[in-house]
């Protein structure tokens, strides 16, 4: 098909799939741990803690791979917030999602080989990948190896502070995941985003 763009090479697609599976696994096991009870709401505590640890370690390595590959291949260029008028374009993107999409307005952003992400994607991915992911990974390792954590922070158990930060960061990531999945259906035909991240090809003609 003419005009289709090859945006996501195999390595990124595999990385993305692995990231998605691990984060979903971490959310399910994390909720099971947070709401642990004799009658588990999702998974038994023992199963949850084992798999949460395994998923967490794998996610850390996957994230390390992302960092290394981002520098080596130059993939991080897609995350760079470019001026001019970034905030204006960000506002337009948000406005489109809030109102424009119902009025049949044209999508304010057009994917290209040099600009994969719209301004809202950029800023949200930036916060997720460079702030909340590092927080959740570092605190996760702290909980996995409690001896590494300061014994007392602000007069309470260092583990307690670490866990609260871990839970809050994890919760923000889980909210991001839900919104991310939904917004991938906005501005194009249902299921096209899934096709794009599965095949690597983006079809501009399918833009809603």
């Amino acid at each position, binding site marked *: 098909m003419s005009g289709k763009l090859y945006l996501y090479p195999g390595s990124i697609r595999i990385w993305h799939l692995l990231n998605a599976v691990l984060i979903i696994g971490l959310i399910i096991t994390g909720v099971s*741990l*947070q*709401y*642990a*009870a*004799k009658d*588990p709401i999702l998974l*038994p*505590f*023992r199963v949850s*803690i084992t798999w949460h*640890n395994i998923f967490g370690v794998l996610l850390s390595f996957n994230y390390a791979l992302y960092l290394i590959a981002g520098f080596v291949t130059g993939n991080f260029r897609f995350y760079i917030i470019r001026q001019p008028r970034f905030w204006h374009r960000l506002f337009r993107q948000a406005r489109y*999602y809030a109102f424009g*999409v*119902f*009025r*049949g307005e044209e999508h304010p952003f057009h994917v290209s080989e040099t600009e994969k992400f719209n301004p809202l994607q950029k800023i949200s991915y930036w916060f997720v990948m460079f702030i909340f992911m590092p927080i959740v990974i570092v605190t996760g390792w702290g*909980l996995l190896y*409690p*001896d590494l954590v300061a*014994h*007392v922070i602000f*007069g*309470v*158990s260092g*583990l*307690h502070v670490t*866990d*609260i930060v871990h*839970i*809050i960061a994890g*919760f923000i990531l*889980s*909210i991001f995941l*839900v*919104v991310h999945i*939904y917004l991938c259906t*906005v501005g194009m035909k249902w299921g096209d985003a899934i096709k794009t991240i599965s095949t690597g090809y983006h079809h501009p003609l399918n833009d809603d």
Partner: protein
Amino acid sequence: MARPTLRSTSGYRSWILLTTLPALLFAAGTQGQDDSTPVTEELKQANHTACLHCHSKKYFSFVNAMTEDSVKKRMCDTYVITPEKYYRSNHKTFSCADCHDAAFEVYPHDPELRLTPKYECLDCHGGDEYWADYKFEEIYAEYEESVHAGLYDNGFSCWSCHDPHEYHISARNTENIKATIAYDNAICLSCHGNIDKYQLVTAQENPDIMTSHSWLPNQSLHFSSVRCLECHTEVNDNILVAHKILPGDKAVKNCVECHSSESRLLETLYRFEKKEKRSQFGFYNGVLVNENSYVIGANRNIFLNVASIVIFGFTLLAIFIHIVLRLISKKK
């Protein structure tokens, strides 16, 4: 063969001092559980001049009357009393002769004296209204159902865990939970981490604690944050500390017994600190939230729970409304 005689600056006649002790004991004897009870210098002096003169040291010396040689011998470990520990123990106001045969006042001791039966807890604490609140009879009944009871014929008794010369109430007399954990676990480890003492009461092979607990995640953190008792006893609200010690295969292995909002730690380690279910900051089992501990699953915060459910709910609601509006706008 002539018996050796005590070589002491004050001579064996000093043992006569023991005759003055009953009066002191009468005043102090029934207050042994009270940490605030002072130990008089007279008692310390009397004990030291008498028994502790030798039994506070790791050796004793005497003159062999036959050879007239000065002989120095190593004191058996079980006969060594550490005065500092004794005078902070529950029995600190007792004199030696209060529990031990008066014939021990004579030195060298008659070898047959070591065969005299020793007091057990209930000999003093049982059937006495003064101790009724502590329910020693129920404690003993629990002990008799414990895995340790079967070792009685091998010499296991209350004293095997609660050394009368050192034991002091820890859990309900301190706010330092870490110190209580270390103190109570040291009691268990004095046998289970010491093959020499372990084999005094059983021919079984002493299990390697690290290996037998290898299933436990964050093993060292658990060992320093809870007592062995937390998992190896059956909770009994009637007595202050559960004494029905369970064998390994019957011990708690279900994580959520502790790691849940209904944590059993509130009925065991923290039962003396349990005041309210949530602290002022909204943490379930707030008493578990301190400088020393944090229990995943047991300390979730009610405010964070509500906030997360509200935020997640609003997110899903917003998405639902968005989907509906998209469908409506498409039909138009």
